[in-house]
């Protein structure tokens, strides 16, 4: 099955408008792990702002797509891909000979909160070390990022304490804030609310909606309700291929493809 080549460049339309700028452009993208093809012949264009949710059953290839956008999959020895990926108008391989430049532009937060074994402040400082900032500038960026992640009020009085002392929900918000200090031009979120409490989930959803107004956010989620709440665009994947993609209004309406409707309905029922 080949994926439909739809563009998502306008906020609520699924019409093709390739003249508009894209933050992400995939053409004939296939991803492999060893000899296994995980994602096959994916074509997509993502707009320069807004929240795009990747939904689909486990093993559909959502995280694989996400993990090639900042080449974090390169860390796996057997992972490879074919086809074309452009990020912010540059080829993801040739356009970014220094992969760290790509990763500073394309921030990522993973499913499991992962704080480094140091203080909250040092966690936030981790990504800033390559930038020559004064202490005051660094502190200001860190404060803004923590505020954006709704964490400042909870940690401002204990920035020197170990980050591992935070709750899981707080840790995940710290990860979001830590990604934000780099002032990324694209943000990738791989099921960021999968392992945390509902209160923190809501805080993260608010963060995603707010940040989505400024930069493109691509988020993998299994929570269909969440996708419905926060997405501007939705891409439905199954068995490594895009089944359908479109605006939120389209994807959650009766006009969507039967397979999409069935998946969305069953996921709702499972809840």
């Amino acid at each position: 099955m080949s994926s439909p080549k739809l563009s998502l460049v306008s906020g609520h339309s699924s019409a093709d408008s390739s003249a508009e700028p894209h933050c992400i452009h995939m053409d004939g993208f296939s991803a492999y792990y060893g000899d296994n093809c995980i994602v096959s012949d994916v074509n997509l264009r993502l707009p320069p702002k807004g929240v795009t949710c990747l939904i689909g059953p486990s093993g559909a290839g959502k995280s694989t797509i996400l993990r090639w956008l900042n080449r974090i999959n390169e860390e796996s020895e057997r992972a490879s891909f074919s086809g074309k990926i452009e990020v912010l108008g540059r080829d993801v391989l040739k356009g970014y000979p220094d992969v760290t430049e790509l990763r500073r532009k394309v921030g990522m937060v993973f499913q499991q909160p992962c704080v480094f074994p140091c203080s909250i402040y040092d966690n936030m400082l981790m990504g800033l070390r390559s930038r020559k900032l004064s202490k005051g500038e660094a502190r200001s960026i860190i404060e803004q990022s923590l505020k954006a992640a709704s964490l400042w009020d909870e940690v401002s009085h204990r920035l020197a304490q170990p980050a591992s002392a935070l709750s899981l929900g707080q840790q995940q918000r710290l990860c979001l804030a830590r990604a934000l200090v780099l002032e990324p031009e694209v943000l990738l979120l791989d099921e960021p609310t999968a392992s945390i409490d509902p209160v923190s989930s809501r805080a993260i959803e608010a963060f995603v909606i707010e940040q989505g107004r400024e930069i493109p956010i691509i988020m993998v989620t299994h929570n269909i309700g969440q996708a419905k709440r926060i997405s501007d665009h939705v891409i439905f994947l199954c068995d490594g291929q895009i089944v359908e993609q479109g605006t939120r209004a389209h994807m959650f309406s009766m006009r969507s493809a039967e397979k999409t409707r069935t998946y969305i309905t069953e996921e709702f029922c499972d809840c």
Partner: protein
Amino acid sequence: MSERVNIRRVQEKCFAFILRASLALCGGVLVFLLGSIVVKGFGSLSLDFFFTPAKDFGKSGGVIYQILGSLLMVVAAAVLVLPLALGTAIFQISYNARPKIRYVLEQSLYALNAIPSITYGLFGLIFFVNVLNTGISWFVGAVILAIMILPTAILSTYQAMAAIPKTYQENAAALGLTKAQVIRRVTLPQSFHGLVTGLLIGLARAIGETAPIMFIATAFSGVTVPQSLVEPVSTLPTHILELAQQSTDPQALQNAWGASLILVGLVAGFSGLALLIRSRLSSEGRK
């Protein structure tokens, strides 16, 4: 049904008895050995024994130069091992991209770890003393001890690094950190306890070794603090060996027990330090 339950209870009791007996046997041997050394060696210990040089082939005097010789060699070995172990473990974890070569290297380290210490001594004798013509040198002894404990230190560091969840590396890489920065900021702080533990366990083994250094680094009598790299030293194990060869003399035997007690104390000190540092650094790494 109740018969089955009874059989299971008997089996449980038998199993528990076997485990307790194993523990008692091992513990008993250890207590007997250490107890013998403490009881027989304690009488020799005095400030004079610690701080005066040996006289009359060890029958009188103390063991100051033997203690200094042993410590000198293990400290030099530690200085040599530390960067090599760290570098090899980092290469294995972060730069060796070929799984087959990684596997072969790892298995080679296990094999090296199992080589009898006399083999290292013979290698030192042939290569350094005969081929390179270094003569009897404490530094050559330290190099041989370093080679001997290197696999232990590498494997301990490597295992500590391999135990770090991959998600840490991924998260650091996703923040735009270079490979070197990931190693410095993430890998090293969380695996340093492994390096220290491996090093200290290796040193605890090295300080008690006689065979690898007997032919290449030590003299049995008449040595003081070496003034250059190519002078011999006397160490506690070789001193004990020398005294044991004169065991018909009660004073020599008594001093042998005393020197053994000091040696056991040094080994226990290194092992205890390894445990302490491991627990401290591990808990810091988890913070």
